[in-house]
């Protein structure tokens, strides 16, 4: 049957599990990214992990410790951007632009030194969801859960520093450590999603479900819930579409999320016009 046919393949089962988990984690952290206007940061981070991945490739080959290389690069970049934007000498988007492009170039330079350059680069940029192993699933699930637990545990503090940093200061909340934590959580999310969605389309997975939910919800807890559902659904539906239409899975997932956004945005517009 239409729905069950792909499920006979274990690579599809693993892919679907990865897509759903990545959809949820991206959407949850994405809600904070959207509210704090950090979209560019997420995009930058996704590209800036390239050198870490490249070094891991060079050291261990394509079955090497890619995940850990990416993780090291992502966390280092997140902390670096955090430190540069702290002093206020440079505008935040300028600082991010400089680091992001530089790191991306370094990554391409390193990867281009490897023989199977174009295939490997394509996998990093656009994901390789059907090659996900059980071990990968374990990493995605473990680190994804870690991100969700951190957000749940520090939820009210993260809301305050995002909504009103001056109030956070009057309460003596450790705003800077919390800001860095959020950057690191975005970094972890990017790495967790790398193989499923790829560096090139990462921002969409973080931003689009959360942006869609922000049009529908007037409370943050609800916005996060809706975003998570949209994220997971986009992942699963997108992978099915890519199976039957044979288009790149990352692109299919992102297109489903984008279609969701457009549909919701249009219906909100129509409803507002009717009311007016």
């Amino acid at each position: 049957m239409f729905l069950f046919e792909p499920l006979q393949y274990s690579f599809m089962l693993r892919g679907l599990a990865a897509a759903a988990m990545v959809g949820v984690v991206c959407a949850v952290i994405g809600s904070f990214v959207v509210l704090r206007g950090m979209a560019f940061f997420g995009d930058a981070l996704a590209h800036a992990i390239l050198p870490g991945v490249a070094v891991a490739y060079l050291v261990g080959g394509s079955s090497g410790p890619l995940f850990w290389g990416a993780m090291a690069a992502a966390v280092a970049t997140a902390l670096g951007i955090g430190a540069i934007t702290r002093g206020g000498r440079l505008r935040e988007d300028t600082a991010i632009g400089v680091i992001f492009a530089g790191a991306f170039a370094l990554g391409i330079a390193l990867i281009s030194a490897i023989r199977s350059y174009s295939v490997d680069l394509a996998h990093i940029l656009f994901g390789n969801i059907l090659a996900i192993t059980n071990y990968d699933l374990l990493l995605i699930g473990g680190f994804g859960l870690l991100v969700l637990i951190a957000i749940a545990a520090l939820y009210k503090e993260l809301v305050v520093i995002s909504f009103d940093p001056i109030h956070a200061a009057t309460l003596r909340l450790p705003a800077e450590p919390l800001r860095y934590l959020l950057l690191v959580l975005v970094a972890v999310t990017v790495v967790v999603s790398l193989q499923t969605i790829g560096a090139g389309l990462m921002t969409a997975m973080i931003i689009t479900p959360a942006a869609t939910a922000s049009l529908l919800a007037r409370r943050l807890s609800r916005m996060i819930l809706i975003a998570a559902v949209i994220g997971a659904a986009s992942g699963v539906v997108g992978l099915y579409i890519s199976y039957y239409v044979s288009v790149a899975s990352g692109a299919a997932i992102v297109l489903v999320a984008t279609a969701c956004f457009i549909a919701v945005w249009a219906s909100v517009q129509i409803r507002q016009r009717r009311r007016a």
Partner: protein
Amino acid sequence: MPSALSLTDISAAYSGKRALDSVTFMISRGERAAIVGPNGAGKSTLFKVIVGLMPHLTGDVMVHGHSHHAGDCPSIGYVPQREEVDWNFPVTVMDVALMGRVKEIGWLRRPAKSDREAAREALAQVGLTDLASRPIGDLSGGQQQRVFIARALTQRADVLLLDEPFGGVDVEAQSAIFGILDDLRQRNVTVLISTHDLEMATTRFDRLLLLNRTLYADGPADSALTPERLAAAYGGRLTFWRDGQPMTVTADDCCP
């Protein structure tokens, strides 16, 4: 008894440019003071220094005798300027009121019944009980200001800073806010407001501070603003109303 809020020789700079220069003043418990001055005079900067969000180059800020950097410093309530708030942020009126208690609730905990009770009580005090579950963005400007005052109440702050609370707020809403401030005075809450409305500042406050990077005047509201001091602070022509009479001040050295 130490004063509620005391600043000694406060200087601060934004990327090398001096924003505050040796500002010194003290406000007693329960006093209601207004900071006036032209745009860009450093009023918001001064508030950010007081709450500890912006570093100061020299001097000290003391709240009830405690340095504002110390852990045991009593907390300060802060009502932000309208422009500084993202009114589309998905929080309800109740959520914002509860934000005053985030520190008391403590890490890794959710608001308890007593916290919700305190928030409900604070909302009742500012007359917003009926709007508790509405998104903050749905409220009028005056109501939004009152939500933030409620947040300061749940915080049990006894020093309250309000940054331009009357911008874009109609007269009726203004008097509602003053009604609440009168209640606060009964409870010895010290209030410091920044405003560019000189007429209101001279008529509705105990104390006036005239700021333009440094203090040009500090005294009782009815006598602090002399024409000379105003001219010095504003550096140009300025007309405002006092006792129903227009009062025009002209500076000698035109123009900034």
